[in-house]
């Protein structure tokens, strides 16, 4: 960024400063630590100067918002045009309970919905299945059939609200139900907007709600890409997620590398299936964690955009700039929340949210202060949402685009993370790609090592967690926690029983048979699933058929 002569002069000046002013102080007073490290254990220098970014070509590496390589953001006006979507992930108890919470959040100024499903819904079990014991309505809303989905969105206009659904193994079924509910409201599939997570690779790597083995999972994912590109064109068909990889204990660079490697695997698989890259790639979206190392996270988001743009253009030959844009949702780091002195979590979340905004996120979820104990209460969710509103409307950070660009530190860090990510790509490729690396336990080992190292550092007080290993008080803070109605499971069981008595069971059997045939062959599965959910075939019934045909995945246990 500097001319050669000027740079030489600056280097000389820096050397003089090091040997003069700096040395004088260091001789008398040592710094607080021998080595300063990011939370990911990346070494951080004392001072960044033009020297650290000397090779940086502005046009090639940084550029302009809305233009390749999108380092500065995906839209030309970014938050001056429209603030990020404030989208709180929510769901608990019955569809009725969650419907009330959604209406509350929309009343409070939230601009999009984000559905948390309970584990039985995510794992393909109806609420009356024995595997659902104790789990119904606990970490999300319980949906067993279209009936529940109708209740969940009752009175919420699906042509006006965009909905993100954190659903993976059963994504096709929940999307089919959403399309059906919209249809009943008179909203056609090409008018609905939203996202399904639909990222199975990270389920095997870090999140754990897989059902089928990787091959049939990849097939369902690409069936969805294909179906949506023709029928639900405004729907984001996948949210390729680093969030859970980070929560599982990875470093920032690992989060980014593994997520983008998964992204490439999906693109590759869709192209091999015969899909045109510029038809499906514009609907790919991403989901990252915002952890509490402020600058490292901002650099991570900027590096993510640059790396993905190059991959899509150079590796996959995309022509449409929309195929190259990495659009992402962010959630603040759940694993950074502490049960000790929980009010401190508001501060942590604020800093993490600010990183996400300075990193150019398209939508954001801020965690609530009480989430180290339970699902958040209405009161604590309100504080979390207000955190975003204060950042967006009061702080002024949304007035200009990518305000930290050009900071010697941020640019050097962005470059460094990019380099680390590319090194991981080489390693994964050498192992034979993501699926082969997964089989060899590569991701699990990498993540387990990083998380164990971090735990050791916290226990040795090399890393400080306020209220946990420093500034502790031993006091317990009383909070009014959310309690999920324990009667939900029974209520759901009764409803499923009633449903099975009133629907056309012969028709349901026929449609389930159709799904079985399609699963055995090559037909796109989605139209079959769509027909079955409309006749109130349950989620569990559909998954039982698919489990029967595809089999179930068994994880390797690496620790």
């Amino acid at each position, binding site marked *: 960024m500097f001319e050669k002569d000027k740079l030489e002069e600056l280097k000389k000046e820096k050397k003089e400063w090091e040997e003069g002013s700096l040395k004088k102080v260091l001789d008398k007073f040592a710094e607080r630590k021998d080595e300063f490290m990011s939370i990911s254990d990346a070494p951080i220098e004392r001072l960044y100067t033009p020297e650290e970014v000397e090779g940086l070509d502005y046009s090639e590496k940084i550029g302009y918002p809305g233009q390749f390589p999108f380092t500065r953001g995906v839209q030309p006006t970014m938050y001056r045009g429209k603030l990020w979507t404030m989208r709180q992930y929510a769901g608990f108890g019955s569809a009725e309970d969650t419907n009330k919470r959604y209406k509350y959040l929309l009343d409070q100024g939230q601009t999009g919905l984000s559905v948390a499903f309970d*584990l039985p819904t995510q794992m393909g079990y109806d609420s009356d299945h024995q595997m659902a014991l*104790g*789990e119904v309505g606990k970490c999300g809303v319980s949906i067993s059939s279209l009936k529940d989905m109708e209740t969940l969105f009752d009175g919420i206009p699906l042509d006006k609200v965009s909905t993100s659904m954190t659903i993976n193994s059963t994504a096709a079924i929940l999307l089919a139900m959403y399309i059906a509910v919209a249809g009943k409201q008179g909203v056609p599939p090409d008018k609905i907007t939203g996202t399904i997570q639909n990222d199975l690779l990270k*389920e095997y790597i870090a999140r754990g709600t897989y059902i089928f083995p990787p091959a049939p999972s990849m097939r369902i994912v690409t069936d969805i890409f294909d179906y949506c590109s023709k029928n639900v064109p405004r729907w984001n068909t996948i949210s390729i997620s680093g969030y859970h990889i980070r929560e599982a204990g990875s470093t920032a660079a690992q989060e980014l590398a593994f997520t983008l490697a998964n992204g490439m695997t999906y693109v590759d698989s869709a192209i091999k299936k015969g899909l045109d890259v510029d038809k499906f790639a514009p609907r790919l979206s991403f989901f990252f964690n915002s952890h509490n190392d402020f600058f490292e996270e901002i650099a991570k988001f900027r590096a993510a955009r640059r790396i993905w743009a190059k991959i899509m253009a150079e590796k996959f030959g995309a022509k449409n700039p929309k195929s190259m844009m990495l659009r992402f949702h962010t959630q603040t780091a759940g694993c950074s929340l502490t049960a000790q002195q929980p009010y401190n979590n508001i501060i942590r979340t604020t800093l993490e949210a600010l990183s996400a905004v300075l990193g150019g996120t398209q939508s954001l979820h801020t965690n609530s202060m009480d989430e180290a104990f339970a699902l958040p209460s209405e009161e604590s969710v309100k504080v979390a949402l207000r955190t975003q509103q204060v950042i967006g409307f009061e702080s002024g950070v949304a007035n200009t685009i990518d305000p930290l660009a050009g900071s010697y530190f941020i640019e050097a860090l962005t470059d460094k993370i990019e380099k680390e990510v590319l090194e991981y790509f080489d390693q994964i490729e050498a192992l034979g790609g993501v699926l082969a690396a997964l089989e060899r336990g590569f991701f699990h080992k990498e993540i387990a090592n990083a998380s164990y190292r971090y735990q050791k550092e916290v226990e040795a007080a090399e890393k400080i967690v306020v209220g946990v290993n420093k500034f502790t008080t031993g006091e317990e803070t009383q909070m009014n926690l959310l309690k*999920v109605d324990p009667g939900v499971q029974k209520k759901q069981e009764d409803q499923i029983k009633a449903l099975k008595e009133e629907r056309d069971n012969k028709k349901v059997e026929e449609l389930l048979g159709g799904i079985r045939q399609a699963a055995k062959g090559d037909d796109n599965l989605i139209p079959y699933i769509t027909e079955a959910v409309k006749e109130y075939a349950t989620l569990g019934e559909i998954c039982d058929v698919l489990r029967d045909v595809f089999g179930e995945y068994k*994880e390797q*246990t690496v620790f």
Partner: protein
Amino acid sequence: MDKKIRILMAKPGLDGHDRGIKVVARALRDAGMEVVYTGLHQTPEQIVEAAIQEDVDAMGLSILSGAHMALFPKIIDLLKSNNAEDILVTGGGIIPKEDIEELKKMGVSAIFGPGTPTTEIIKYIEENVKN
């Protein structure tokens, strides 16, 4: 030489959060214990069967999904009906304080919440396993 402590680490129910249990499993192994980890999505029956087959002294159950009040008691009951209540039952996860008190009354020996140092868990297991 003392016999090594054998411990079963298990994930009951459908919860997929395994960062905590893997860190604790490794810390216990590093502390010289023999650790068996079941992996995700285990039913109470599978866990109790594994505990008996592996002849463990203790178990560490991890639940972050909120299903603890249904699954922990079931495991305790199954241990009793299989005459295996001498196995020390401990747990961890996202568990509100009032539930911890309930679980202790039912026979869970200790619950370790977020932020617990692994050294504290190791010490507890070493002191409380009946030799």
